[in-house]
């Protein structure tokens, strides 16, 4: 019956060869259909992850504006560190709540009006000020793609979205120097290879004067605070908007920065 209907439609040669996935091409990654763990997921083989890690590291060094490459580097190299982070989060009550409820920080989930109305010095108000002054938006974070575990994919997404919070907590702007300081803090806190690499290789592009300030004052301060503070991913920031920033800093043991880098 099927052929009767198909015949007047012409010899559809292309349909004779069924689109066969893994059977005839043994080394392809199954990137369609049901094997996806989350919407943006791209399953990758170990070889692909290795190539991606090397390629993204090189490209990120070559062109520091390729933030997507930094993100890819984080995803492909961070498996072990993400597991440690996830376990840490599970042990902490607030962290476990975050893992369960999966809050996301984006312009669609933030109530900017409400944040604007908060008193000066509160976390929400300072966060908003940070976004305005540095002209950044929480929506520029690329979605996770190369992590092959759904929960770990959320952990790294949360880490990315919390990055701006860390800028606010540490009082660091988004220029090169500020980013490196935050990276040092994150490297100590999370142990992600991408943070460690960024922290070690980022200073290569700094001027001598900035480098001197960085090494002598900012890095020791960032490392000290990173060690002292509990895991920053365990904070449910969305429920702490009203908390004054100073009290939050006290809670985490974060001291004032020794030398606030000038905003560029």
């Amino acid at each position, binding site marked *: 019956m099927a052929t*009767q209907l198909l015949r007047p439609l012409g010899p559809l040669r292309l*349909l004779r060869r069924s689109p066969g996935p893994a059977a*005839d091409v043994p080394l392809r990654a199954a*990137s369609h259909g049901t094997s996806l763990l989350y919407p943006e997921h791209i399953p990758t083989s170990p070889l692909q992850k290795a190539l*991606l890690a090397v390629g*993204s590291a090189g490209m990120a060094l070559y062109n520091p504006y390729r933030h997507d490459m930094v993100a*890819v580097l984080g995803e492909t190299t961070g498996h072990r560190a993400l597991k440690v982070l996830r376990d840490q989060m599970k042990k902490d009550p607030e962290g476990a709540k975050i893992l369960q409820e999966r809050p996301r920080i984006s312009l669609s989930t933030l109530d900017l009006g409400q944040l604007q109305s908060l008193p000066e010095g509160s976390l929400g108000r300072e966060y908003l000020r940070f976004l305005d002054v540095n002209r950044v938006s929480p929506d520029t974070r690329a979605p996770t793609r190369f992590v092959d575990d759904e929960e770990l994919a959320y952990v790294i997404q949360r880490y990315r979205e919390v990055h701006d919070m860390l800028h606010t907590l540490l009082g660091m702007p988004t220029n090169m120097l500020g980013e490196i300081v935050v990276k040092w803090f994150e490297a100590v806190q999370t142990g992600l290879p991408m943070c460690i690499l960024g922290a070690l290789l980022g200073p290569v592009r700094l001027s001598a004067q900035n480098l001197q300030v960085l090494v002598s004052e900012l890095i020791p301060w960032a490392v000290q605070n990173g060690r002292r503070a509990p895991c920053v991913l365990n904070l449910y920031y969305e429920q702490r908007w009203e908390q004054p920033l100073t009290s939050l800093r006290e809670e985490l043991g974060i001291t004032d920065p020794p030398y606030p880098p000038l905003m560029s």
Partner: protein
Amino acid sequence: MRRTVRLLSPVNMAAPRSFALWGYCDRGWSRLMPGCRLPGFRSCWPGCPLGARLLSQEKRATETHFGFETVSEEEKGGKVYQVFESVAKKYDVMNDMMSLGIHRIWKDLLLWKMRPFPGTQLLDVAGGTGDIAFRFLNYVQAQYRGKQKRQLRAQQNLSWEEIAQKYQNEEDSLGGSHVMICDINKEMLKIGKQKASAQGYKAGLAWVLGDAEELPFDEDKFDVYTIAFGIRNVTHIDRALQEAHRVLKPGGRFLCLEFSQVNNPLVSRLYDLYSFQVIPVLGEVIAGDWKSYQYLVESIRQFPPQEEFKEMIEDAGFQKVTYESLTSGIVAIHSGFKL
């Protein structure tokens, strides 16, 4: 009142006389016009007892492949358009990276196979960024200059007046050759035009936005029709081939450079490994686009092998169809004539 449609022959075996589709609506039996697309009847199907089975059959008929995904034919054109829109800016860089520069040799070989003479009218379909067109212009120009030199050498003993006349007639260094670059994608054409002005190609080329399945040209217009790495992205390859046959002059030549099937098992394994493991990574790192390059390597696997494609070209009416595999069959150049 719900309209029900029942389809008779060709489903109804009792009336095999005509393959015309008859539809029964409230008003009685009426012959469905040939241009009627079956999907349009979906709203009427629920009442039809044969509906479910016919629906699934006809659904399969209007589906095609997009890489290893299955999509409807209407969708495929749009999705391919999006792929090329996003890769256009880095297209040439990625070609060099992915093929390690070998694609230049393949395109040169296509031109050497074509051996155009000055005065050739070329239609380069899916020629967006102009690689084939520029090579054509270079080739024809070199030919013309060579011819000029030979003429001058042969006519050394001519009078001065005749030589001066020859010089005055020489305005067209291309000798009347012309290339029409046709592409369905505006972004690719834009990049091609930028390249042309950057590299100084002003005369002898024209840029046209058009669909390979429905070319905006009259019949019997071109001497040569080329399509390089474009035909596998066309939704209906047979229609593109028929259009190629239509617009070529009698005696005209069809040339297609396309990825094909590798004939050596070892090379095939290495090629697969490289295609699926390395190329999407290159796409992500260099162009920030994994999915487009995943589509590109999958679409290569979906394209028919050399013999089958040769038969398709013959079906479109071309004669003396031959093919030449290059680099162990990674690409093949198919050639046919409209006689």
